[in-house]
């Protein structure tokens, strides 16, 4: 991960259909490729709609009615049921922007376009995966939480302790606390033996949230 932009994490080989493909085609593709969304594009690769497994389900007649209707539906073109007001992202958007869009619009898939042309797609899972990498939890490391006053320079002071201990930091989070006078700094550090670091931090007057407190 060089950069937290969508271009780096999006899937570039997108499975698409044209508006005149049948709903049956869409259903087949969804089943075969195990996907939930299919962007619908014109001949010039312009994004004109999107169809999801749910759109098809919603359009299908109830199982209580007669089945002939279902066959008729499946032969209709996807343009009849596709959504045309598609929310899209740009390759240069930040990954956290995409996360916000997923959250606010309650959607789980985002086609990525430039000048209206489809260039990629990302899903909620792609974004989640990026955040897992951000936490550093995929690399061997120990986790240390330090409670610090909510003033400038704290992160730098704590980081200096790690630097002096020659321990590489895999990730840092700054968590707000309910009490606005404090923040919690969460580090994943590349060492199996954080005891020296913890002693040093405590000597400097910081509260280290681990290991003593959780058992009590």
């Amino acid at each position, binding site marked *: 991960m060089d950069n937290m932009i969508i271009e780096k994490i999006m899937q570039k080989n997108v499975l698409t259909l044209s508006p005149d493909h049948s709903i049956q085609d869409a259903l087949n593709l969804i089943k075969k490729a195990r996907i939930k969304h299919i962007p619908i594009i014109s001949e010039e690769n312009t994004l004109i709609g999107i169809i999801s497994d749910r759109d098809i389900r919603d359009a299908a007649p109830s199982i209580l009615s007669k089945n002939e209707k279902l066959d008729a539906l499946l032969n209709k073109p996807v343009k009849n049921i596709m959504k045309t007001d598609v929310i899209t992202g740009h390759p240069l958007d930040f990954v956290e922007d995409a996360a916000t869009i997923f959250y606010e619009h309650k959607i789980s898939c985002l086609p990525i376009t430039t000048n209206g042309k489809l260039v990629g797609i990302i899903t909620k899972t792609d974004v989640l995966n990026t955040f897992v990498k951000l936490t*550093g*939890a*995929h*690399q*061997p*490391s*120990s*986790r*240390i939480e330090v409670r610090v006053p909510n003033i400038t320079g704290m992160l730098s002071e704590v980081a200096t302790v790690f630097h002096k*201990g*020659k*321990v*590489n930091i895999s990730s840092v989070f700054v968590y707000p606390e309910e009490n606005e006078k404090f923040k919690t700094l969460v580090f*994943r550090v*590349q*060492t*199996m*033996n*954080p*005891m020296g670091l913890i002693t040093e931090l405590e000597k400097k007057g910081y509260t280290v949230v*681990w*290991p003593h407190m*959780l*058992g*009590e």
Partner: protein
Amino acid sequence: MKDSVFIYSPLFLNYKFSNKHPFNQLRVELTVDLLKKLKALEDDEIVEPRFATDEELELIHDAGYIRAVKQAGEGKLSEHEALNYGLGTEDTPIFQNMHQASSLIVGATLTAVDHVMMEKSKHALNLGGGLHHGFRGKASGFCIYNDSAVAIKYIIEKYGARVLYIDTDAHHGDGVQWSFYDEPNVCTLSIHETGRYLFPGTGTVHERGQGSGYGFAFNIPLDAFTEDESWLKVYKEAVTEVAEYFKPDVIVTQNGADAHYFDPLTHLHASINIYREIPKLAHEIAHSYCDGKWIAVGGGGYDIWRVVPRAWSLIWLEMKNLSCKAQGALPKEWLEKWQEKSPVELIPTWEDPDPLYQPIPRKKEIEEKNNHTLELALQFIRQQREYNAKKNVNGQTF
């Protein structure tokens, strides 16, 4: 055929990062001396280990990494290059002749394997081994070469046997797990303190293997402050059921002794009692499924004075059916010899002092959480068993 062999060389002490480093192979020496003074280890039971060849190391490790370790041990590797291989960090500092020292540890585990697989003995113990954090191309968590992973691969290739690896170190056995994550002939089971805070952070219950290896990795991360009762319940159920499911040809156990309350690096609250039970069940499993084939290695363990010598002696005593000897006072000569060198007061008995620690207020919650984790970890096996049972019943009915 002998019942058990003890793989040991005084050269194990050469695997030494620095005087201040928590990983200290003096603990093997302390254990050997304790067993000798107990008159439970004879010279003719001790087998001199060989060095692993480069070819053997390459069963797991990248040739470039092995070259780097060699160069580092001769002072010929730049700091920048070393760091790319995880060498020269606080956890795995560079030391003179580190390649030789590390390949002897691997060779010792291979010696243990050959003794057991060529049926020269039923069981073999290498307390110098168990370096389960070593990766294909990177040193990690005090480990340079991963003796256990090399040995398991060696068993598959040379003897074509299916291996159950049981890791009871307080840290997740990540290096071994990832080496065989897609390998259906190796089943890994690691019981460790949760990685939420503790190194290496992996070993969640959802890590179950991938591809054809899916369903052959088991992880049971326990809450900090887990005590004997809960720890043993998890261990006994997990080991029994995984063994029954996998039906191994041979077992390899990693016996890190760092889940003890006294251990400075971890936050589990086990006592010496679990170190009596761990080898006992391993021994039973070996005889039930593997005609006795059991290779045991050491691992973590950072209270080298009060915990490790007693805990590791119990493995050997169990192999030889002599665990009844480990009761009451420790041999007086051993205590006298080592007390003056120890920075802490030695525990004079095989048993831990009672009480060992203040009661844990969250005990019930922790037990409940661990039971839930155990349930999740074994769900896969239990469902399969139920399904098979139903199928059998139906088969008879129709």
